[in-house]
């Protein structure tokens, strides 16, 4: 087995173990109000950060791609207008795609 295979399998095993760990933590630790609140707020913090990072950065650099920014802007407009979930992501992707196809950005 090559070193690369070991890295691949170790990554897979590590990532899986971390996922399983979250699901198998005894629920009684969530009996503490602060711990439960933390668990509730984590997805909000991480998904907000992920959305921002994926929109305005590329690697370790800021990357303000006009089509991508416009796509996310269109998603916000759709959300304010209470569009359903799939409409929001279609509007976002279509906006970016059209801007790129037309060469506007």
């Amino acid at each position, binding site marked *: 087995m090559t070193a690369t295979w070991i890295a691949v399998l170790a990554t897979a095993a590590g990532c899986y173990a971390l*996922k399983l760990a979250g699901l198998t933590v005894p629920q009684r630790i969530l009996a503490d109000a602060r711990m439960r609140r933390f668990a509730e707020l984590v997805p909000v913090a991480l998904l907000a950060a992920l959305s921002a990072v994926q929109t305005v950065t590329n690697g370790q650099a800021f990357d303000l791609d006009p089509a991508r920014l416009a796509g*996310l802007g269109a998603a916000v407009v759709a959300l304010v207008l209470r569009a359903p979930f799939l409409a929001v992501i279609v509007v976002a992707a279509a906006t970016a795609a059209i801007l790129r196809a037309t060469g506007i950005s």
Partner: protein
Amino acid sequence: MPTQQAESARPPNGESAGLGRGGRPADRPPRPVRDGIGLGLAVGISGVAFGAAAVSSGLTVWQACVLSMLAFTGASQFALVGVIAGGGSLLAGTAGAILLGSRNTLYGLRLAEVLRPRGLFRVPAALAVIDETTAITLAQPDPAAAKKAFTATFWCLYVTWNLATLGGALGAGRIGSPQAFGLDVVGPAAFLALIWPRLKTGRTERLVALAGVALALATTSVLPVGVPVILAATAALAGALAAPGAQDSPASASSRRAAAAPNDSSPGDAI
């Protein structure tokens, strides 16, 4: 038909049964299966980019596919092949990739409370714990919809991501870039859409989200890729310590689920 399944799964007391704090308008039934399939397809196609990146970094097609099948968490997978492509050590690449997987542990804490997986079911369910499944699952108004959303999103995304990885590794990326179809915006738009109801209704949620974004962006240029997002968890910690009570908080405990949804005969068994 998935849509019919989602329709018929609506609880009799509907939207008010709420995992989410009244975020969903009353005229909008939950569509966990349809939404999950849509997101799974759109995000899964990005697997083409991973497959292409993996092979160009020197991995074999098989190695790329095994990562997508068994690690199944995009950020970690890209991190490993990124380090390998950059000539970094395999040990550093593996350590970095596993570190990035830790956000799935945090998601699992919350998902376990909502999905209540039991015994050996946790073994397959664990593979499915990633950003997209978490976001869709926690956006559902009741536990039954949450489980459908979790399952549908996982299967659709898993199959699409793995086929796309294979395609990308075999050179399909040369046909056209996912960016041309705007697919790079799907993730950011989806994550924002799925936390939107909670941002609208919770002041703490808004502050935590803003702080998380600020922390992540402020540290992007100085920390390894992926770590800034994990750092955003400290915003959640601060929010929890500052306002721990939050009996009006969203998406919560089975006890409140029972109170809100008396028609659900046994909340603990709902999932």
